[in-house]
């Protein structure tokens, strides 16, 4: 019994490896600006993820610590060796809050991403595949939600939930989730509609596969390719949304975690007296993380999307009469 199991395992390993290789092939083949964007984005993003995970180790103080060894930190102290990024009016260490902030942002955005994907994707699959009345109703509702400014929707949801659930990570995550469900729904649904008519799906149907089998085995994996770049770009957007909620006072409460948007809202009153460090550093953290995620998302998008893809130059020689566009110097993808 042991031997067949062993071979079986080897076989699966064999069959999975090329598949993984094929899936990541476009990433290895990426060249030029695409490649730079992809790797710079990945580097920035992973730096922030590391910072979030290691916050208790790398941060000199806790995010709501205002004293150490019995002495209170100075208020609004300029950056110094003691406090690399200075302190706030409530004596918090700005550097520590920037580091702990990464944890809050990433936590909330991950929760909301998982929630909006797990609602938006199935809805899009079902709506697109079965079409009919349900589809029409869902599309109308989702379009109406899409027409609405994201930020306003999130503010209203956060406002409505704050009475019931209280202000916190969950409320903020739900507010962001509601704003993004229609987006995933729409992208997935439209893609499903175009795939539904493909011959391989028709073949599966003709062979008598049940609808959910067709969706699971044939439609899902074709559609899901679009999600990584979209989700990465949306994560960037979601961080902007979360910090905006925090700035307006509807995000994470200061006792629950450090949040960059909230810190900037506190910094507004410092600005008139020329104090820049309380606002500058959390703001730069937002810009850097969002830029990193956007670069990663755009890089992935161009790598996976064959229309925009540019591959490494292959050794195909064209004759001298081949039409060579004046501007394009690299070989285009298919």
């Amino acid at each position, binding site marked *: 019994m042991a031997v067949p199991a062993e071979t079986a395992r080897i076989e699966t390993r064999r069959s999975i490896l090329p598949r993984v290789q094929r899936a990541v092939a476009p990433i290895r083949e990426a060249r*030029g*600006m695409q490649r730079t964007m992809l790797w710079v984005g990945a580097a920035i993003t992973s730096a922030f993820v590391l910072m979030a995970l290691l916050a208790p180790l790398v941060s000199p103080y806790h995010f709501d610590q205002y004293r150490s060894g019995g002495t209170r930190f100075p208020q609004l102290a300029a950056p110094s060796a003691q406090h690399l990024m200075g302190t706030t009016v409530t004596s918090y260490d700005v550097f520590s809050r920037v580091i702990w902030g990464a944890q809050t942002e990433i936590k909330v955005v991950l929760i909301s991403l998982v929630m909006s994907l797990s609602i938006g994707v199935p809805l899009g699959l079902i709506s697109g595949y079965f079409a009919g009345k349900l589809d029409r109703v869902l599309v*109308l*509702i989702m*379009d*109406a*939600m899409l*027409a*609405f*400014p*994201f*930020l*306003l929707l999130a*503010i*209203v*949801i956060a*406002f*409505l939930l704050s*009475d*019931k659930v209280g202000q916190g990570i969950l409320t903020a995550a739900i507010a962001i989730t509601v704003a993004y469900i229609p987006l995933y729904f729409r992208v997935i649904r439209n893609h499903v509609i175009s795939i539904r008519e493909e011959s391989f799906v028709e073949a599966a149907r003709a062979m008598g596969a049940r609808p959910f089998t067709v969706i699971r085995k044939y439609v899902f994996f074709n559609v899901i390719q679009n999600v990584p770049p979209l989700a990465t770009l949306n994560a*960037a957007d979601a961080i*902007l949304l979360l*910090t*905006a909620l925090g*700035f*307006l006072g509807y995000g994470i409460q200061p006792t629950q975690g450090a949040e960059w*948007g909230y810190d*900037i*809202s506190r*910094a*507004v009153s410092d*600005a*008139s*007296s*020329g104090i*820049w460090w309380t*606002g*500058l550093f959390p*703001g730069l953290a*937002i*810009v*850097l993380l*969002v*830029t990193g995620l*956007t*670069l990663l998302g*755009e890089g992935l998008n161009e790598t996976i999307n064959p229309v*925009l893809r540019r591959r490494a130059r292959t050794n195909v020689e064209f004759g001298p009469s081949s*039409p060579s*566009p*004046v*501007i*394009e*110097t*690299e070989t285009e993808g298919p």
Partner: protein
Amino acid sequence: MAAKGTSLRQYALTRLALVVPMVLILLTLVFLLMRVAPGDPVSASLGGHAPPAVINQIKHKLGFDKPLYVQYVQYLGNVGRGNFGTAINPAQPVSEIIKVNGTATLELTLYAMIIAITVGVAIGLLAGRFRDTPVDSGGRLFGIIIYATPIFFLGLMAQLFFGVYLGWLPVSGRASPLTQATLTTHTNIYTIDAIIDRNWAALGDVLRHMILPAFTLGLVTAGVFIRLIRINVIRTMKDDYIEAARARGINERSVVYHHAFRNALVPVITIIGLQVALLLGGAVLTETTFNWPGIGHELLLYIENRDYAAVQGIIVVFALVVVAVSVVIDFVGAFIDPRIRY
């Protein structure tokens, strides 16, 4: 030509007919959203300290004691007649809020839009035209970073640098108190009011107050334009007719400026229309950062006061504006591009 005219009219009528369910759904969503909200809107807006008799009286006056479906029908009827309800605290009709604060938002967003289009179209066209050159990388990077910058952060930094450090520009409000006192209200769009009065000192002051908020909102919005216009130009440059124009020996400059850019810019009108929702969301943040007395500023105030009636009225207006703009944009798009028809 006659056939073309008919089809455009048909398009317009179909598009208008499609607005009805959209508006109805938006209104219903807003209504349901505000009704599932926990707590009692009236006592919440009065701070929970009002005597029960007063609360009941206000509830009766506002119709909150009626069954839900009656409220719903009344609400739809009211919105249909242009009555968006009455704010409780501070008490004033929502239509008044729109007239006073909405115009402030309108003025801000118009200037921001001009800046966004100018910057976005220029950089987007250049980046797309010179794809994969330093111009492209620079333009894209600028677009990505400016889009990654929260409006309130950019605003804060602008206030610190231009307002506090250099002392060049005012950092809050629509005008200085002196101007507020001398300016007569015609349209409540200060630039126009000042021009009507030929009050040039006021005009200068109003414009100086406009610079930082409009640039903040405009530049961040430009980030989106850069990305979309660049992709459009790249796509257009690959089209057959560009190749055909080149084959006819038309010089590259003319191909790019007359053939590629013109066609690349047609979809941009639609893109700009889609950004109105984004711009309105951004306006809320800009108004808070710069203490601009716009409608977003007002909305946050009423949320703070737990005034459900006002919040409902203001979001209904937001929703209607978004729908109206999208219809107008579609009309313009269909007028320019004869391929857009149902």
